[in-house]
């Protein structure tokens, strides 16, 4: 269970996140939706320890992570697949995945997770010796997700995994998210594709200019008039 209380994130003088509180229960899919600039990415970056300028509290299974650095947070079982994929274009697919397992030293566990990721993404398996930069956009997204999974996380945070993908691939990404969740991993999903995200989410939050303005189950928010008007195209 991840509990965020009164989180603030600032860039210089700009307040990007202005006191949000979010719960991510173990085993669930939780989604943050909201317009561009609402503070979704900043929230994930604060959780993963990248934003040093954060206030409030981040607690993970009772442990305080507020001051931890990114490496400690990965070791604690929280990993983020960043916005824009950010795969390493000059490293091979295999090396990208190995990098995802950097914080681990259990050789056998890494090998079996590698097999699992290749089962999940057969196209990555075919291209394992290829440089990351030569993959198509969809494949790069698969690689970004697979790389995050290689850290054997308890909580995976995905920042706009469907961004820029063709509709068929978007569906594939959401299927994969379900599959990951079925395997027992908790998912915190940030999406512009509000409809698809709300459909698979157990719980959802709407962010507007750095504040949570609505929350509820995925179904509740899909049915909510305000959400329909603002994020689901009426």
């Amino acid at each position, binding site marked *: 269970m991840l509990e965020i209380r009164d989180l603030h994130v600032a860039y210089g003088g700009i307040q990007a996140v202005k006191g949000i509180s979010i719960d991510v229960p173990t085993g669930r899919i939780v989604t943050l939706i909201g317009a561009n600039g609402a503070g979704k990415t900043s929230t994930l970056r604060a959780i*993963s*320890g*990248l934003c040093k300028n954060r206030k409030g509290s981040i607690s993970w299974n009772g442990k305080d992570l507020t001051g931890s*650095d*990114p*490496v400690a947070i*990965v*070791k604690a079982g929280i*990993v*983020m697949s*960043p916005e*824009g994929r*950010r795969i*390493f*274009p*000059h*490293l091979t697919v295999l*090396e990208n995945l*190995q*990098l*995802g397992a*950097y*914080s681990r030293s259990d050789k056998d566990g890494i090998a079996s997770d590698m097999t699992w990721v290749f089962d999940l993404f057969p196209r990555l398996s075919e291209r394992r010796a290829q440089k990351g930069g030569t993959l198509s956009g969809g494949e790069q997204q698969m690689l970004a997700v697979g*790389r995050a999974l290689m*850290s054997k996380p308890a909580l995976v945070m995905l920042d706009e995994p469907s961004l820029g993908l063709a509709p068929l691939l978007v569906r594939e990404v959401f299927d994969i998210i379900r599959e990951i969740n079925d395997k027992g991993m908790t998912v915190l999903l940030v999406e512009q594709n509000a409809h698809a995200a709300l459909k698979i989410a157990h719980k959802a939050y709407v962010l507007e200019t750095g504040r949570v303005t609505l929350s509820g189950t995925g179904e509740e928010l899909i049915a909510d008039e305000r959400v329909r008007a603002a994020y689901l195209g009426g």
Partner: protein
Amino acid sequence: MNLATFIQNILNSLTLGSLYALVAIGYTMVYGILRLINFAHSEIFMLGAYFVFWGITLVHLPWPVAMVLAILVTASLGVLVDQVAYRPLRDAPRISALISSIGVSFFLQNVAIVFFQAIPREVYRPQWLEDPILFHGVRVLPLTLFVPLLSLVLMLLLIYIVYRTKTGLGMRAISKDIETSYLMGVPVNRVIAITFGIGSALAAASGIMWALRYPQLQPIMGTIPGFKAFIAAVFGGIGSIQGAVIGGLTLGFIEIMTVAFFPDLAGYRDAFAFVLLILVLMVKPTGLLGERPEDKV
């Protein structure tokens, strides 16, 4: 020029070239990871040579032991320089670390002048490196075999570390995208420290072997070789290890061969290196193997 002289000139070129290459690797690795030109690197080169000298004269260590210890001490010093002078500036504008490195360079040079004194010191050289050996009728200076071979071993070791170990994978990741490396759990500061350690060890090895070839120690002895090695790194494409090796060897060959074939132009040999550098940079600003710098989003 007869064949024997030609062969000796080739070996001289390889010797000088690998000495430049070893130093250039340190410049290029640090630049690749931090986008920092570490001006203190030439002082690391100088200190490596001095540490061997003191190891032999003060502590009476056998030469090979003094050499290994000097490399280790210099590597630790390189790590210390990073921790003290660059790490606190990691989030500052790049120019700050650059200025800091110029400061460290002056500092180390002056510390060397104070503690080691500016008088040139004679370096101990094992006799077996001096006595020419006959190889199929060609007289060869053993030093000019020893230096390229030891350099080759060190470079192979480096390539193994960079391309076959986890730390090396971390280095290659950081050089492209520090933030995502953090996200993947790479202990970035530790990997950077190791990079400084490796670069400094190679510079120390180069400084030590330089002192075997030009057996005089001076606190300013790192300046010119350091500058040339930096040029070699830029010429090969800064950020690329292979480029640093090619750049170093090219510079070595140009210097030695200019003097060998055109003795009258000996005085201009440095100029040739710089002219070549300018030409390459005009045609290919990123150097031979350099990548176009990417803007990080």
